[in-house]
């Protein structure tokens, strides 16, 4: 062995050892926050998203997609969707159940998924699930044809208005599938009478709360990690917006009303009722009013 090889080898070994020790110290110190209330840092989020996307694309590359346009297939898929998917993912005008709103990462709005993901990859995710998310592997709980039925329904889903989705509910839901009843917000904080010691809205708290009500799955929101979808309108510049939802003059009181009870203001809206408490709505409004045209 030549001397320079020895130097290079030793340097590499020392660097590796130092790196390993650093990583170990980082893990053991508990520096990384594993709570579902604290979002990933933007770089970590970007790496995780890219790794997930590539992992799925590579593995789903050879899946042959069966015909999906049979209307009966979509109806069968809707029944499965209603029984197993809507609880976490929601639907047009239908909020995910309270337990699902606290998940990190947030369960995707499937309208957006259908608009951007190929059928083979959607099928693969339904079949295999996703590690360290709430997404289970359905292959052990659903037939192969059933999983493709769900994909067939997801092809129809982005074309349904909230009113049309309700129409599907009344026409096709009664097949014995154990779908959820009307959302019961009994366990939610909103059902508790508001405390008398409400404080003024706090923008930083509001920014964190945006994650907990799944705002991030539908809206592009400057300053909120991972919020880059276009199901609802982008919220950048909302402070300068004249109307809320095209209907309500944009005042702080109206914004709080809208956040708490959108269906009372616009029964046709795709924005669901998320059982937002008065305090959380105030905090979110305070945050949203920091989003002026400059952002």
């Amino acid at each position, binding site marked *: 062995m030549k001397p320079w090889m020895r130097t290079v080898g030793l340097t590499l070994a020392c660097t590796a050892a130092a790196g390993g020790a650093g990583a170990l110290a980082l893990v053991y110190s508990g520096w990384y926050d594993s709570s579902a209330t604290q979002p990933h840092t933007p770089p970590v989020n970007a790496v995780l998203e890219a790794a997930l996307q590539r992992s799925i694309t590579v593995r789903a590359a050879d899946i042959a997609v069966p015909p999906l346009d049979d209307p009966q297939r979509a109806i069968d898929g809707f029944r499965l969707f209603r029984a197993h998917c809507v609880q976490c993912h929601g639907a047009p005008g239908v909020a995910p159940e309270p337990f699902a709103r606290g998940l990190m990462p947030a369960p995707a709005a499937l309208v957006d998924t259908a608009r951007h993901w*190929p059928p*083979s990859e959607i099928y693969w995710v339904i079949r295999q699930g996703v590690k360290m998310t709430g997404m289970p592997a359905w292959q052990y709980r659903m037939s192969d044809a059933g999983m493709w039925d769900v994909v067939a329904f997801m092809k129809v889903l982005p*074309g349904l*208005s*909230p009113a049309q989705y309700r129409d599907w509910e009344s026409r096709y839901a009664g097949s014995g599938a154990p779908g959820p009843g009307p959302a019961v917000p009994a366990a939610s904080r909103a059902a508790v009478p508001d405390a008398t010691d409400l404080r003024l809205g706090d923008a930083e708290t509001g920014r964190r709360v945006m994650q907990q009500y799944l705002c991030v799955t539908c809206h592009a929101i400057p300053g909120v990690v991972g919020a880059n979808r*276009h199901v609802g309108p*982008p919220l950048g510049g909302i402070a300068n917006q004249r109307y809320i939802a*095209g*209907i309500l003059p944009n005042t702080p009181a109206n914004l709080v009303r809208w956040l708490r009870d959108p269906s009372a203001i616009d029964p046709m809206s795709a924005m669901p009722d998320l059982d937002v408490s008065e305090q959380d709505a105030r905090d979110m409004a305070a945050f949203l009013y920091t989003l002026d045209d400059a952002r």
Partner: protein
Amino acid sequence: MSQAKTPGIFMDCLSHAGRLGLGVRPRGICRLPAWLGAGLLLAALSGCGEPAAPLAPPAQASALPGADVARGRQRIAEYGCASCHTIPGVRGPSARVGPPLRHLASRAYLAGVLANTPGNLVRWLRDPPAISPRTAMPNLGLSEADARDVAAYLLTLR
């Protein structure tokens, strides 16, 4: 080369290479086992082709045959859309009365109530209050042809 002096892993690789007919004679350190190399290569190659089409692709201006994007942009100026909306490519006061129309083609819903399809966009432009009675957007009396042209332009805003 005597077998007694050769580490086991070396022979493994050698036999892999032999089996694959590579005719490689590893020297000094061993190459990656053939199965690992092939696996990495496969992983690198798969998914590198054309990305597969989405399940339900967002609306395209081409879905409106006969509609003209350039004429649509002109109609937007004539109908004064920019007095309420900020519209990329259309000069105006950066108004914030209606929502800004950037990314309109990427949006899943129109006015929060209607799936964003080319047909629905034309319907919405022709008579918004008929679809959402409480909307602040007025009926501007667009003809079918004008609405199709305007929709074609708006669907270029990704």
